[in-house]
């Protein structure tokens, strides 16, 4: 069996994996390998042909493929070894990875450090328990995006979109521009989780109605989709009888949330957070299994790739530091979600960290003219005011190392006031 050793192994060559690899190499790691299951690097950005990526990182608006190409070019310049068409089957807690490819067969790789960067998947119809028939024409928005942008095929002509996440909004515009009729975008929550810019430029620009507090309650069609029934929902998200609207459509796209893809993390015994569905990590993005790191959408679902890259540069550098035995060992501070806050990452911070730590979290509702507060018992560490916090936009507060000295307790709480 093909067996070998590397210092740092990175699983996934999307934006997270590429950034982690670049940063590990720049931190001096010579023995570095990236495994990618698709034929090419770039991850989901390959199919995100719209623009709007990179404003924070590159100060310009790039399309997804252009953003990815910058990292791919950088990785090539640094001579980083990326094996594509290679699927990782298992990761074990002793850092043994098995993977397969047609060209190299089954390989067993022993790594000193591993960075998990597998990304996320879309919530399918089954997870929504939407009743009705099981006909053709129901796709997750990302699958439709792949068909249109990578394969060059249109999945349908008359479209309803369930969920107003950014991918759904982007696909509303994309399908319209490509000649389809998008009848409605339907959102079960009273607000959209998409960016304002996408609501305006993907829906308003094309007169596509957005039905807030509505959901699909029935799917019709024996072979191909023939229509869906949409109804208004009450505060408990139960459909309200008498509010049904029928749509005559041949396509239903689902944009109902993303789920970090953590099957490999589980096989390695990595502890997951119920709030993020990703790993529990410390400020170095190290998981509960020493030497295994996680970053990008496999850790928690981001809305901006710039943040993915930023986080992954840190994870890659931390993996390099682990290989060089430069780890910190001070006691851990637990980060807790307080009122109005969900899924703060990282969940743990070592008190002797010498770098600023970004606390990233999702507001659990829309808050206007409020403040994000980080506190330790009675002691307020940070107060950051904002005109708005919304679930659609990940919020971020930065803790400076000096704030962590001499804390009155071993946990801090993030809340929205």
């Amino acid at each position, binding site marked *: 069996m093909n067996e070998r050793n590397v210092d740092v192994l990175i699983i996934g060559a999307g934006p997270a994996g590429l950034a982690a690899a670049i940063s590990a190499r720049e931190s001096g790691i010579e023995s570095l390998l990236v495994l990618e299951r698709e034929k090419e690097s770039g991850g989901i950005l390959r199919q995100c042909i719209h623009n709007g990526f990179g404003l924070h990182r590159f100060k310009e608006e790039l399309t997804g493929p252009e953003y990815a190409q910058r990292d791919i070019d950088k990785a090539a310049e640094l001579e980083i070894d990326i094996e594509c068409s290679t699927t990782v*089957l298992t990761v074990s807690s002793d850092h043994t990875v098995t993977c397969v490819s*047609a*060209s190299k067969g089954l390989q067993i790789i022993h790594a000193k450090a591993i960075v998990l960067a597998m990304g996320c998947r879309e919530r399918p119809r089954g997870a929504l328990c939407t*009743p009705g028939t099981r006909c053709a024409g129901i796709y997750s928005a990302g*699958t439709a995006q792949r068909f249109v942008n990578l394969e060059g095929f249109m999945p349908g002509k008359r479209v309803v979109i369930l969920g107003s996440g950014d991918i759904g909004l982007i696909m509303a515009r994309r399908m319209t521009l490509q000649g389809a009729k998008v009848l409605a975008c339907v959102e079960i929550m009273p607000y959209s989780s998409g960016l304002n810019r996408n609501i305006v430029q993907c829906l308003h620009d094309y007169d596509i109605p957005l039905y807030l507090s509505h959901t699909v309650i029935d799917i019709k069609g024996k072979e191909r989709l023939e229509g869906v029934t949409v109804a208004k929902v009450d505060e408990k998200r139960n459909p309200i009888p008498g509010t049904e609207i029928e749509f005559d459509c041949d396509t239903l796209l689902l944009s109902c949330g993303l789920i970090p893809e953590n099957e490999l993390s589980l096989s390695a015994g990595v502890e997951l957070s119920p709030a993020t569905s990703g790993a529990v990590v410390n400020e170095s993005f190290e998981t509960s299994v020493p030497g295994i790191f996680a970053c990008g959408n496999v850790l928690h679902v981001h809305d901006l790739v710039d943040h993915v890259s930023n986080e992954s540069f840190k994870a890659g550098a931390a993996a390099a530091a682990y290989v060089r035995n430069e780890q910190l060992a001070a006691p851990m501070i637990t980060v807790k979600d307080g009122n109005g806050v969900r899924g703060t990452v990282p969940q743990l911070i070592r008190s002797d960290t010498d770098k600023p730590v970004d606390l990233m979290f999702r507001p659990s509702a829309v808050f206007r003219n409020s403040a994000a507060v980080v506190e330790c018992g009675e002691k307020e560490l940070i107060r950051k005011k904002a005109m708005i916090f919304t679930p659609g936009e990940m919020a971020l507060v930065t803790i400076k190392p000096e704030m962590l000295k001499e804390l009155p307790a071993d946990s801090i709480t993030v809340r929205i006031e």
Partner: protein
Amino acid sequence: MNMTADIIVIGSGITGCAVVRELSRFHASVLVLDRESDLAEGATKANSGIVHAGYDAIPGTKKAFYNVRGANMYESLAKELGVPYRRCGALVLAFDEEDKKTIADLKARGETNGVTGLEILDRETLLKLEPNLNPEVVAALSVPTSAIVSPYEMAFALADDAALNGVRFRFDEEVVSVSKDSDGCFTVQTDKEAFCCKVLVNCAGAFGAEIHNQLSEEKLTMIHRRGQYYLLDRAAHQPFDRTVFQCPSVMGKGVLVSPTVHGNLLLGPTAEDIEDPLDTATTSSGLSDIIQKAARTWSGISTRTNITNFSGVRAHLPTDDFVVGPCEECPGYFEAIGIESPGLSSAPAIGQDLAEMIADHLSLARKEQTVPYPLPPVPFHDMTPEQREQAIQQDPLYGNIICRCEVVTEAEIRRAIRRPVGARSVDGVKRRTRAGMGRCQGGFCLPRVAAIISEETGIPLKEVTKNGGDSLLLSDTIDAFLKGGHDHE
């Protein structure tokens, strides 16, 4: 008219497949007609997948007779054909004194039917065996011979074996009428053409009565009884090792909670009488009904890991029994009607009986040699690392993982399409390989599976279907589509 085949079998569900596999052992030409585009598209693809031990059927009925005999054939049949099967045992729960009487009756009934190993267990023993049971349970009938099987995979294997031995299959042939001609032969008219045969076999499932009533004066009325299900992810913690039933009612065996052979968890079915036998929609009331009832079995029930809901329609006769055998008033016409639960369990025995009756009728000679069924390779998902390495060495396409959730390789998908009765659609591939059956429900692998089907079959990509007929996946290429013009201007 030319003789199309000696024997025509209408329907390629589990019963039809079991019959033709047995018929393929005789010297006769056999043709199967199915209205759908693939095997097992009716109740066979959407049921609980239980090989019932046979305690439930009333002694003396055909259900009792075929159930016990069929169930006894399953283990070796599954081994012979390489079909997933596991004797996981079952429990029938009692929650009060009345239920206790029912399970005592079931035990006695089972023993009369010849079921072995039946035993009444007390609460304490039960909760030790299955700690996730509702602690309000008071007793249960333990059925150690109850088993689980993949029903459609059994039908696929039976059909492949039959095809290797000369049986022909034609799909998308909806039988419009059947008649017996003056020469004693049968004419079978489909929506496409007419076929002719000496012996006609009705394994038409939901449409069994419709066929029967054209050839017999003793009219049958079919009741279409829909059953809806939840299927939970196989990665989820499995609460039970055994199939867990509640006490049966007039509408059926009630809602069960059962592991599947692939390690998923199945909850269901409902029992609703409906008009249209093809109406396999799920409903919000049906789905909430299942949760409510299954919660009585499983304390701490959770459908958070649900990956899909589906439903199937049982072919129920008011007599509550099967009709199996020759039709007295119409020599040469044989039938298997009303094959609802325990139809899956009974199918091998029904197949054997019907084939022998038909062979007798036509004085068919048994073939001296049959083409042996090649055991299917172990799924990549279940291989050891050594087996995986070897498989990729022999066929590098084993190294291309197409379905990441269920770990299905390109080699396996191509093999599923090349099987004797191979997959022609995305669902056909799914049921033969499990590609797309996992937690992302084909979100990632669908475009790749569709492309492989197109390559293997020569069907253009935009004509590849989800499940035959007009279930097209795609509209057109983007440029052709756009040229059709915007209606926005």
